[in-house]
């Protein structure tokens, strides 16, 4: 019964969404306040109904209601509760419902926190958001109903894909969806602004927090997925340039470009039409990502629910919203006059370069991802585009971005002077280059990856610190230190996020250039040396898990006679799903990870054991965490909080009717 109520609630929410798409738009056009006014309560109702539908589906998973097809296909009574909860979104239908839930959540948030927006803009934003939501609700209800019942319920379910039964991956999709869907807010704001025909500094200030939030969620989501791949796939890879990964990277790059260009709109009222275009494309690429994951058009390690019919439905959604928005853009872009004038050397110009690099690199990833398809259809050549291409095509953009970042961040608005901006940076530049050269001289082999990574990483991190220091102005060191604590959180956010990028660049280079590997057969009791560690296979045990059996190796690691860690790599087997998984054992340290996986038993009684030393692997996750933290700091900046609080002092009657 609860499941049927959930289904019914979703259909009701769909009806509300349709109404919310039309009524506020008409109201805003005609200037009817009561018609505009329904948008906010409707957004709340939509969210409440969808939340109820989602709760109903979750309930079916928790109580293992095997009369629901989705529960049978993705759950099992023995599965731990946390994976029953994550099982709701570990499949096509449920994840789509989560997607819809987040869409309504963002819509409702715009209703709850958007009281300071001009009435007509808010009505239009909510209407556009609701239009997007309605189309995804239709997609869910008509092609991917998660509430389908079975006439003859089986005794037990077929379990969730064991690879998904993992804490890292359990929370990867919700973050990613919060990011993808967060960009829908930027899209709605862009389209609403195009309908209004007005983009000003205030618009930049409103759209930026949504973009920032979406970017933070995307960063966390991508990092979680990458971390999962690192420890779960058994050989410590963290990025594969897989179509599905690219599908999340492209919106991330666009969101990064957008949140920088929105600053220019906010502070200088320039780059308006470009920012609008970025907002449209950012969400467009999010939709494209959904299409890639769910259509089965491109083969990928992560794709689930490959179904061409669903692909066509998403394609129609993309064509409708992207086509509509771009047409609107073509008609209205000229109306968005830029006001701010700035010289060729200025913060504005630096941010334009940032946008050029981010947007072009995103397009390059897009072309590489779609090329096999184009090549097959147009040129009749079946081919692959893999990591070697992306490494070669993407890296130059990342390097260029890291190179200009500290200088650009230091340039003043309107009119700058490179020599002046470089003044506090010369020392850092010399230091970074010297460290890079030192690393190059010390390492064996001639690979330039790590030296370049070290130099760039130091340049960006210390550049960010110098930027923060210069913000404190003149005076004694004590005064400046005191001022450091009083700097706006946006400044701290900027420095933190930029340092995170520098750390990530360094970690990627160190992992690529310095990791070492060892593959061998070990008898029980046998030892070997790897990177200064003595590893001994003490034994192999059989362990029974809740819904799997495991073969667990016990490997003692020592360094100079001192025990470092006991590593327990596992090979698990999930009998219900009939799938094996590998669980690497990792000893995390600040300067390296010791990474061990257990292979097959050999004919001579030994076990295959694979060992990696992964230098500075943790710095990669720390770098991503810093980027996300920087975004959050910036999001908590006073100017957003004050703007949000301002509405309380203004009574609604004081807002003039347009």
């Amino acid at each position, binding site marked *: 019964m609860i499941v049927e109520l959930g289904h019914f609630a979703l259909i009701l929410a769909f009806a509300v969404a349709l109404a919310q798409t039309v009524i506020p738009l008409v109201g805003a056009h005609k200037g009817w306040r009561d018609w505009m006014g329904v948008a906010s309560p409707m957004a709340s109702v939509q969210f409440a109904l969808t939340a109820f539908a989602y709760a109903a589906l979750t309930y079916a998973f928790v109580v293992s209601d095997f009369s629901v097809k989705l529960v049978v296909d993705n759950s099992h009574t023995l599965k731990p509760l946390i994976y029953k909860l994550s099982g709701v979104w570990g499949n096509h239908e449920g994840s789509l419902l989560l997607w819809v839930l987040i869409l309504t959540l963002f819509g409702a948030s715009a209703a709850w926190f958007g009281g300071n927006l001009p009435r007509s803009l808010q009505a239009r934003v909510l209407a556009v958001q609701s239009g997007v939501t309605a189309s995804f609700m239709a997609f869910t209800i008509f092609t991917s109903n998660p509430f389908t019942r079975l006439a003859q319920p089986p005794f037990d379910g077929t379990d969730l894909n064991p690879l998904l039964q993992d804490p890292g991956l359990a929370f990867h999709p919700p973050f990613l969806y919060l990011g993808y869907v967060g960009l829908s807010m930027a899209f709605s704001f862009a389209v609403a602004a195009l309908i209004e025909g007005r983009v000003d500094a205030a618009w930049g200030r409103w759209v930026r927090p949504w973009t920032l939030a979406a970017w933070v969620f995307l960063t966390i989501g991508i990092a979680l997925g990458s971390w999962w791949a690192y420890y779960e796939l058994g050989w410590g890879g963290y990025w594969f340039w897989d179509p599905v990964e690219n599908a999340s990277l492209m919106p991330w790059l666009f969101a990064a470009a957008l949140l920088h260009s929105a600053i220019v709109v906010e502070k200088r009222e320039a780059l308006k039409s470009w920012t609008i275009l970025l907002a449209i494309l950012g969400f467009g690429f999010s939709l494209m990502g959904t299409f890639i994951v769910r259509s089965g058009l491109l083969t990928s390690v992560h794709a689930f629910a490959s179904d061409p019919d669903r692909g066509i439905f998403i394609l129609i959604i993309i064509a409708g919203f992207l086509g509509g928005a771009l047409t609107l853009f073509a008609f209205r872009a000229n109306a968005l006059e*830029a006001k701010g004038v700035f010289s060729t050397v200025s913060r504005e*110009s630096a941010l334009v370069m940032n946008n050029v690099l981010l947007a072009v690199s995103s397009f390059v990833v897009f072309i590489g991802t779609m090329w096999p398809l184009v090549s097959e259809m147009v040129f009749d050549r079946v081919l692959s585009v893999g990591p070697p*291409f992306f490494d070669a095509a993407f890296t130059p953009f990342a390097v260029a971005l890291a190179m200009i970042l500290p200088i650009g961040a230091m340039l003043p608005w309107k009119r700058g002077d490179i020599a002046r901006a470089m003044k506090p940076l010369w020392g850092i530049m010399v230091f970074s280059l010297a460290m890079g050269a030192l690393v190059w001289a010390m390492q064996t082999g001639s690979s330039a990856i790590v030296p370049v990574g070290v130099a760039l990483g130091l340049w960006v991190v210390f550049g960010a610190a110098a930027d923060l220091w210069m913000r404190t102005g003149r005076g004694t060191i004590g005064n400046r230190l005191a001022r450091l604590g009083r700097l706006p959180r946006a400044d701290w956010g900027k420095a933190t996020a930029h340092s995170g990028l520098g750390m990530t660049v360094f970690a990627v280079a160190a992992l690529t250039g310095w990791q070492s590997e060892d593959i061998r057969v070990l008898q029980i009791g046998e030892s070997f040396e790897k990177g200064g560690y003595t590893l001994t296979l003490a034994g192999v045990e059989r362990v029974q898990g809740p819904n799997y059996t495991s073969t667990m190796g016990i490997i003692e690691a020592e360094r100079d006679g001192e025990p470092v860690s006991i590593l327990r790599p596992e090979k698990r087997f999930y009998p219900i799903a009939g799938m094996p998984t590998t669980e690497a054992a990792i000893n995390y340290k600040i300067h390296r990870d010791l990474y061990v996986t257990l292979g097959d038993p050999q004919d001579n009684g030994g076990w295959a054991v694979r060992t990696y030393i992964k230098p500075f692997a943790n710095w990669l996750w720390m770098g991503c965490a810093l980027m996300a933290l920087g975004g959050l700091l910036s999001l908590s900046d006073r100017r957003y909080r004050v703007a949000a609080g301002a509405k309380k002092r203004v009574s609604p009657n004081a807002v003039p009717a347009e």
Partner: protein
Amino acid sequence: MTAVKAILITLMLALSGPAFAVQPDEILDDPVLEERARDLSSGLRCLVCRNESIDESNADLARDMRILVRERLVAGDTDAEVISFLVDRFGEYVLLRPTTQGSNIALWLAAPALFLIAFGGALVYLRGRARAKTEARGLSADEQKRLDELLSE
């Protein structure tokens, strides 16, 4: 219960198959050749997998291909010869690094071309911005109307 467990374990060992990419028995004795084999295999696609190189993949076919690469290397083939041997058999699809021939030129030129276009566009825009006059603009029609309303109140 123990019987069930024994069956499960046997089943597990039978089904789990190769849970490793490169197996210890595949590794060549000559470290230089092995290094070349690893480099080559990380650029070759496992044909039955969904986007993995044969160096990463656990599939049986990937193992066969890894062994094939090593056989060719031991037989004295150069890297290019090994690659063309595999492309002859499995087609261009096996290469993770697309060739620079024919239509693929468009792919490889996409990044520099797009960058030049975007960079050029940005430069033109920036010059325009720098030259634009800071003329004090009057009020828009709407704003003028609103001002008149306020003044007449």
